[in-house]
């Protein structure tokens, strides 16, 4: 089946000369949750904006369900719902009015029953007659989502959906995204939190400096970059690393206080228990321990290094 969005050789150069998208090729499959990962300024928002029609492209082609976004923009845009990163709402409108307005703007007949269901799903029903200006930040973000879903889009773009959002809303948002996917909606979200991408996405695309560095199944990507690190804070500083610990390739920091051990979480044997046993035998006590996953930054560094 043809992908629901296909981007080919997309180039976007801003007037300042900045190349925001450098010949991007990307295919989004139907009904998947696709996470676009990248550092600030990587081109995530520009890519979304070009597909949605709020930023023009310099060259290239984007097809949304087979419709060219320039020549056949009506059909293409009618399929898309967009939730921006920044909260941009008509603050004087009531929740009900602004959401209903969005539906009309996208050429759909009024459907109060659908809007009611939508507002209830987003816990906005109680607030329907309040003006946007009276709502809290989290509620405003829910209104942004309600507006984007008001015309029952087939594709939903979420630009940094959980930046600055509390735990409840984040959980609600994730549940909503999954429910939408089950209903047949394709979801593309951008984030710079790898946990979020890992938790939510079927596939992950990594973008940096306007280029897509890789697109991979989430599970495969996590396997590939699933390096983890065990950090041990020692009870008593060591003058030097004991020879007995060398097989583990552990590192000792300059003060002799912290031992770090890198391991592959997906490997059959991580070597952690053996390491801890050996340390016990050597009488090296520790007062704290912590494990961490390689961060997105590490992934970028290794990807960008690999590319150049």
């Amino acid at each position, binding site marked *: 089946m043809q992908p629901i969005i296909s981007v080919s050789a997309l180039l976007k150069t801003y007037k300042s000369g900045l190349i925001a998208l450098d010949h991007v090729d990307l295919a989004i499959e139907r009904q998947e949750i696709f996470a676009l990962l990248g550092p600030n300024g990587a081109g995530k928002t520009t890519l979304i904006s070009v597909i949605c*029609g709020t930023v023009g492209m310099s060259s290239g082609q984007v097809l949304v369900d087979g419709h060219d976004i320039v020549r056949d923009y009506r059909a293409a845009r009618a399929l898309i719902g967009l939730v921006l990163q920044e909260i941009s709402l008509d603050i004087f409108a009531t929740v009900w009015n602004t959401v209903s307005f969005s539906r009309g703007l996208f050429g759909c007949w009024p459907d109060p029953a659908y809007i009611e269901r939508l507002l209830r799903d987003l816990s906005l029903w109680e607030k329907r007659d309040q003006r946007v200006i009276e709502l809290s930040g989290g509620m405003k973000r829910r209104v942004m989502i309600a507006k984007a879903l008001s015309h029952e889009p087939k594709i939903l773009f979420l630009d940094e959906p959980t930046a600055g959002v509390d735990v409840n809303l984040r959980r609600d948002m994730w549940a909503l995204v999954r429910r939408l996917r089950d209903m047949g909606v394709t979801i593309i979200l951008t984030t710079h939190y790898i946990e979020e991408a890992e938790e939510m996405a079927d596939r992950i695309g990594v973008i940096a400096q306007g280029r897509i560095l890789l697109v991979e199944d989430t599970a495969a990507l996590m396997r590939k970059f699933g390096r983890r690190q065990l950090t041990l804070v020692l009870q008593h500083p060591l003058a030097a690393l004991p020879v007995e610990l060398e097989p583990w390739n552990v590192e000792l920091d300059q003060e002799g206080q912290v031992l770090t051990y890198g391991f592959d979480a997906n490997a059959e044997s991580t070597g952690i228990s053996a390491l801890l046993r050996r340390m016990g035998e050597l009488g090296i006590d520790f007062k704290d321990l912590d494990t961490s996953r390689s961060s997105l930054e590490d992934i970028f560094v290794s990807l960008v290094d690999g590319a150049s």
Partner: protein
Amino acid sequence: MRRTFWQSIATPVITTVLYFVVFGGAIGSRMQHVGGVGYGAFIVPGLIMLTLLTQSIGNASIAIYFPIFTKTVYEILSAPLSAMETVFAYVAAAATKSVLLALIILGTATFFTPLHILHPGWMVAFMLLTAVAFSLFGFIIGIWAQNFEQLAIVPALVVTPLTFLGGAFYSIDMLPQPWRTVNLLNPVVYLVSGFRWSFYGTGDVAVGLSLAFTGLFVAVCLALIWWIFHTGYRLKP
């Protein structure tokens, strides 16, 4: 609804009543007839024009400036709408409001001065054409303006002076030379003159010229708007 009533309708009506009391009643009663009609009646078309111009520009410019300022314009840009539909919506909304106001002012004026409209069809036509022309102009200003000061500067520094000099309150024949000739470069002269012709059958310039000039103004605005959407100027980076 109540907010709309007071801000949008009551305010201009009160302003117009003040104009009539001062210019029509207090000063006008001491003045001779202008162009065959009493001064009170003479200024009615000019006053309506003044409202049409300022309201059309104000309504259209704030209507597009504010979404750009608050960034809610993203929704319009990402909606399945053509540029023409977008412009039509903004301009039609602004023009409708200013024409409604113009009609209310016309109605208010009948309480102060006897009015006889010679060519009502042409009067409505001039009203609509002027409202559309200056709503288009306002739309351009709203996109061009980068802050609230710039939004206010064109109406305050250009439109209001041109309207006052354009014969809203006098016939430009009353002006001494060379001001009379200079004033022929003022586009508002043609609007007011054409509009006044539709009331009383006389104007400062020929009615055909008035129509042609207004049409030209609409064409220039449309060309500019086409360019804005074609290049994405300030709307679409």
